[in-house]
């Protein structure tokens, strides 16, 4: 592994790490000062060469995304929208960033606003995140008083205003166009694309949408340069990121590692599997990522490494399961999530998520039919690529992989009506 660099988490353990004073003592807002002296296009170019890839889930090249904003907007303003609607099961990195180093996020936002020509930003923050919201609101006030936000930042002539906008509980509002609909005061139904938000986004104007963590890396790129940042990662993705590790590990929590680290190294960082147990499976990128078995953890954690391993990096929510885990019940829990959170706009998504949840429940109750697993696979596959947003394809990740990789457990439940992993256990079934 290359030398350990902490780009995102280095202030996390300082007392009052959320205060401006603390941030400035470790060089906070110096990158903003530097960026304000650069040409906006040069900032975008630097970010592109750094191989920064979006950390919200899709892994799209950040510099390239910024480049999609039209040069000529016909007098329309450009907006920056920050995706702080963190909702992917297994993920909690943005919460840490907002609570522990909000000024790093704000600095990244201001630099990004300057680079893409946005003077106004909206932060869409998950409704349940009350503490992160309060801390971020406090940080905005502090930064504004210090002329680091607001009109004429540091005498540069650049104005940048931030509005905090709180969600009200709906996973789908994390999808960028569902988020925009919600921001505009509607239910969060994702939009048909194209047009993409860079052209028609918030309030009909060109909009750049980035995840909290993506923006928090921008100051580091400006500080130390694209080559350094790119060199921390793999050939196609630069930098580090925060892996949210939870489940059956000794020390669950956020871990920052270069994206070139392996899944095995990450699990070791988190203390390994809890005492007296052994690894059974890992979900490496939030619940929408395909599950990996204990034999499949030597892949690198970057976007392309996990894709090559048949899964995805997604939001880097890493859920570890030991040998006590019944995969049938795990799929039930995951399928319940997708059935509950589908926005209902597309028929394949609305119908299949509900149907698969019910059938897995039936298997768990000992009432499964021999043809159920194959039928789930078949139904799940049919809808792929047919829906308005990537929610459904995300749900299919677990449907297919849990069954394909742990088929004997499903067949055992169907054949015997009971569980081979924890015999005698009575699962709790819920109504949706």
């Amino acid at each position: 592994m290359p030398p350990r660099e902490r780009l995102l988490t280095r202030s996390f353990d300082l007392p009052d790490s959320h205060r401006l004073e603390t941030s400035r003592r470790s060089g906070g807002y110096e990158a903003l000062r530097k960026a304000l002296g650069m040409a906006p296009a040069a900032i975008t170019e630097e970010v592109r060469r750094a191989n920064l890839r979006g950390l919200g889930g899709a892994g799209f090249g950040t510099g390239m995304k910024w480049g999609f904003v039209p040069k000529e907007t016909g007098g329309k303003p450009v907006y920056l929208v920050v995706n702080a609607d963190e909702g992917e099961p297994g993920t909690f990195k943005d919460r840490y960033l907002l609570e522990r180093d909000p000024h790093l996020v704000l600095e990244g936002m201001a630099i990004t606003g300057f680079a893409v020509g946005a003077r106004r930003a909206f932060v869409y923050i998950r409704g349940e995140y009350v503490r992160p919201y309060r801390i971020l609101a406090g940080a905005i006030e502090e930064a504004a008083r210090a002329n680091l936000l607001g009109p004429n930042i540091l005498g540069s002539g650049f104005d940048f205003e931030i509005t905090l906008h709180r969600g009200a509980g709906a996973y789908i509002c994390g999808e960028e166009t569902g988020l925009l609909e919600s921001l505009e005061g509607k239910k969060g139904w994702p939009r048909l694309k194209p047009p993409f938000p860079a052209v028609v986004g918030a309030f009909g104007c060109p909009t750049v949408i980035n995840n909290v963590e993506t923006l928090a890396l921008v100051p580091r790129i400006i500080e130390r340069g694209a080559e350094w940042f790119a060199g921390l990662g793999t050939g196609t993705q630069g930098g580090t990121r925060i892996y949210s590790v939870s489940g059956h590990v000794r020390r669950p929590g956020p871990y920052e590692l270069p994206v070139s680290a392996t899944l095995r190294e990450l699990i070791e960082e988190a203390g390994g599997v809890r005492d007296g147990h052994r690894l059974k499976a890992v979900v490496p990128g939030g619940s929408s990522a395909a599950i990996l078995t204990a034999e499949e953890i030597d892949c690198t954690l970057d976007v392309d490494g996990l894709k090559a391993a048949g899964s995805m990096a997604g939001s880097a929510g890493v859920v570890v399961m030991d040998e006590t885990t019944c995969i049938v019940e795990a799929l039930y829990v995951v399928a319940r999530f997708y059935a509950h959170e589908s926005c209902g706009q597309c028929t394949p998504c609305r119908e299949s998520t509900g149907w698969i949840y019910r059938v897995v429940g039936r298997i768990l109750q000992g009432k499964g039919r021999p043809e159920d697993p194959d039928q789930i696979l078949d139904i799940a596959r049919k809808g792929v690529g047919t829906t308005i947003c990537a929610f459904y394809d995300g749900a299919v990740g677990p449907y297919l992989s849990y069954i394909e990789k742990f088929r004997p457990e499903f067949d055992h439940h169907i054949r015997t009506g009971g569980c081979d992993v924890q015999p005698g256990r009575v699962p709790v079934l819920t109504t949706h």
Partner: protein
Amino acid sequence: MRGAGRVAFSAETLARARELMAAYPAPRAALLPVLRLAQEEFGWISPEVEEHVAGLFGLTPAHVHEVVTFYHLLHQKPVGRHVLSVCHTLSCWLMGAEGIIAYLKERLGIEEGETTPDGRVTLLRAECLCACELAPMMQVDDDYVGPLTRERIDEVLERLD
């Protein structure tokens, strides 16, 4: 009961709502923030509250209703003084969320979705609250609490008024 009958915002809330509506490129963007204000004032979003908010925005009540039903933090029936939302998604389930929910039901003497007869506590299930490192965890009003054990739950319940 709060929220029943015709309702109107207090003068302060109304002023705050108008401020929010002026703070966005389109006033309608303030709908969720204003519904949140409404919930703070009335405790839940009754049909009468929907109607009042609709009037404020020049939207139809049906439209506001459609928005309210989409978001689960907007309560469509009265809730207790305290709301406990227990996460039951993957990481919390792995760490024993179902046992936690069973214990809470036993302690409170209610089912999920219900409020204690004294109006003190409402018990809900939640999907991943993105604090999986605290699994099993729940949200107690504004705060995240975890990892939960029976002892920890006893403490939390003790502290609620």
